[in-house]
Every structure is written in C-alpha cells, then in structure tokens.
C-alpha cells in the first residue's frame, strides 16, 4: 500500500510537470489561450505540493 502511495504521488508530480510544460508550450504558440481560462499559478502550487508529498513518501 505504502509502495503504491509513493508511486501515485510521484506520478501525480510527473502529471503536473507535464501539464505545466504543455500549458506553457500552448501559451507560447497561442498567447492567452490557457491564461484566459486557468491561472497557471494554481497549477504550479499544486505541482509544488505534489512534489513535496512525493519527496515525503519516497
């Protein structure tokens, strides 16, 4: 169970990393397309939290 939790927290962190990279990529290609709908700061906060949880569970 603990092993699975570690895998999940790590994968969630990877997911948010990919989401941020994708969002920034889309913003570079089409400015405002993401920022008009979503504040990337919130995603970055979630990414940081998931990174910390992943480190704790390691």
């Amino acid at each position, binding site marked *: 169970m603990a092993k699975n939790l570690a895998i999940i927290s790590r994968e969630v962190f990877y997911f948010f990393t990919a989401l941020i990279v994708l969002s920034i990529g889309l913003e570079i290609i*089409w400015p405002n397309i993401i920022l008009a709908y979503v*504040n990337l700061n919130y995603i970055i906060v979630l990414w940081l939290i998931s990174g910390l949880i992943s480190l704790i569970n390691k």
Partner: protein
Amino acid sequence: MIKPFWTKWSFLFKLRFIFGVILLIFLLLFLYLKIVPFGQISYSRDYSSAWRSSKGFISGFTPAERVDLETSEVPAIIGDPVYFSVFTPRTFDQAKMTIVYRDNLTIDLPIIEAGVLVDNIVWRYDLKPVDNKALDYLMLRWDKLEENGLLFLQKEKNYSSLADWEKDLAKGKIKDCSNVSTNCLAVYNYTPPYKYQIANYQPLLPLTIDQPLRGAHQFYLYLKDEPLHLDFSFIDQNLDLKPAPIKIILSSENGIIDTQIIDDPNLNPGSGQMEEKKVTIDKRNLSAGIYKVEVKITDDMIIKKISSSIGRLSFIHKIWPVSGQGNLKVYTDSNYLQVKALSPASLQTISFGGNKFSLTEAYRQFDFYSEDGGLIKEIKIAQDDLILENNGVFALSPNALINPSLMKVDRFFSVKMPVKYIVAEYQKPKEVNGFKVATVEFDLKNAYREKGKYNFMIAVPGLKADDKLNDNLEIYKINIEFEGRTLWQKIWQ
C-alpha cells in the same frame, strides 16, 4: 475484450495511461477552445463576483480616472468614455453584447452607447445604442410604430406605416412638415432614404484653406454640375517613431468613389525632419449632392493646405487648427462646443456665439454652450492648437458651412424642439430585478483587432469625472456572444 488488456497492465502503466488520457483531453479541450469549430462562443465577466480563477477574456475598464472601483462593489463609470478589450482566440463576424447595469445618471445624461473600434488611425468606434431616455420618454407619449426593427414615433398620427412615410420622405414632402432638413425630423442610429439638396444652389468660388490642421479630419462638400478637384499638401513631422501613412476616402451616399493611399516608408522616425507630401483627387461628372472626404492621418501629420474647386466645405464634428499664429475665426452650426488646449500657450479666453469662455487648463476638455439663437455661430480664437469638437460642422468662412445631417436624438435633443417625426433603430433596455439589461449587436467584419483583442467602448456623452457630481453608471455584468465561420466553412470556402 478490454478487460484482459487492463488486467495484464501493471499498476504503474495503468496510472500513466489515465494521466496520459487526462493530458490528451486537456490538449484537445484547449485546441477546441482555440479553434471554436462550430463558430459560436460566449465570454462573460461578472463584476459583482470578487473571485477570479483566471485572467479572463474581458479586460478591466480604462482609463482608471474615469472608473470608480472603491465606492461600489462593481466598477462605476464616472467619466466618458471608457474602454475595454476582449481577447478572442480567433476572428469572428458578429458579436452580441449584453450589459447588465444600474444607471445613477442625471437627467441631462440621457444617452448610453457601446461601440467597437473599427479604425485605429482616427479612433472611430461603431457606436450602437444601449439606452436613450429621450426616446424612452417619447415612446410613452407619442404615437409609436415598430416595423422591421425600426421605431417610428409621430407627434400626431399622420401615417399608419413607416413605409408610407419613407415614400413621402423620398419625394421630399412629409405631411405637416414645411422643411424636412431643418427641424421636422430627428433620427437615431438610422439613416433614412433622404437626399440632401440645396434649393437654388449657386456655386461659390474655389476655396483654399491654408490654415494648418493637425491629424485626421473629415469634411462635407456640396456640388452640382461641377468638377471636383482637391489638392492636399501634408507635412509629416517625424516626431514619433510610427509610420505616417495617408489615406483619403471620397464617398457619397451610394458608397466609396475613390481611395488614395500613400504609404510611409518611415525613413526618418523620430528625427523631427519634416517631409512634405501631396495628394490630388480629380473627379468629373459627379451627380449633384453631398460628398464626404475622410483624411486619415496620424496626429504626427499636419494638413498644411487644402485647395478645393468647391466652395462649400465643412469639417465634420472636429477641427484642430495648429499654426502657432493667432486671431482665427471658425464658424459652426451648433450651440455646443468642446474645446481642449494642447499646450499652456493656448490657454485663453475664446469667444463663441458672442459669449466669452475661459480656457484655464491645458489637456482638459471644456464644454461651452452659446445662447446665440442664430443658425451660424462664430468662434474667435486668439491662439490656436486647440481641438474644437461638437455635434455639428465647422468651416473657416460662414458661406462654406453646410450640414446635411438630420437632427439626432442625442444628448442635446429636447422634447421641446419642433420635431414631428422620429425614426430610430433602438430597443429599450429591459428591467430585471432592479437592473437594466441591454443587448447590442456589432458587425465585426470590419472591426480592428490587435494582439487577438477587439476593443470596445462604453460612452455616456457628457459624463465627467471631475464635475464633483455623484452620477455614475454601475456595470454588473458583460456577456459577449461571438459568431463566425465554422471550421468546415473555413476549410471549404
């Protein structure tokens, strides 16, 4: 079929598969929102809600000094006009704007309009009515007909349909009206099928305007059985870094007749080195009537001289004389004048319709009203570099003054005027739970779009931020429905 695959996959693979699908959905969703394949999308902003999860599509109002964000929970417009932009991921053909507002305006501010920017050189907005209290008042008291989206008001019922009235107007004879063009008919957001004619017209001598004028201007000309020859001489001051192209459009009521464009290679940006440019328009066999000339230039350019074969030439709504010389006389047909001094050296006492008015501050707009009952009012200026604006026309000699525009139900309109008919394309705003809700439609095909944004304006003519009155327009919500070509139409057409 799927189950055997799913059971064979490891936990890590399943997890990555699920997150991969979420990322793919995210990508496809934003591609959908970027392309808008069905051609319709709506953006809104609720100003009463403090929570914002994103940057949004509709920007805040500018300039800041015309908006009060402190007193009320929503922005209150305290000065005219205010601007906002709307980001769209692609172009659209039409926009339907719904504004929810509460109006705390005084009785002398009867008009609210909204517009979209269509020309960024002369900053022209295509304005549409939001609220017109003069029309709202008359709709309750006069005979009212609504036909094909048009509102037809008659002081006394002489016509049973708008079509009958339009037929009579085309003939130049309306029941109970001695002179159509002067005081019998008023319009709002509507151009009737009416051709302006000067009775017993006698041509005037050719006109030379050698008073330099800064920036974009437009003027009317009236001619009959005469050739039209216009020579323009421009000075590009090269004080700013932007290119200064020249665009001159000659049009009549039937549309554009000629367009002259001179591009600017911008070889000396910001150098202050003056460049002279010339443009000529020569047209023969033009039918009798009114012609409009639009001179579209930036404020870095000066119209040094206009030589016209036609003597009747009047500037529409605005004139900006700039020579540094004094003692200029300008004539207008309006009782109202807006004046802005562009330098401290231009502060002075001006004479308008025989009354004296003081310009005490540079870059501030002053409003003056003349009590002169005459048709033509003289404006005497001791020092120029003033922007003169009103709802009428300006000319540099009284004989040159012509105004083919019909009376408008604008903020200067009074129900005491001897108007007998009003035609307007206007919908009264609805009242919902103490709020007013108005819907305005715009054609975006010719709208100006920069960096993915359309620029809009909300105008309350006459509303001033610095008049110390507690009058304002509170905006609660703006919703804009955009409509354009679908993806399939874009691909196949």
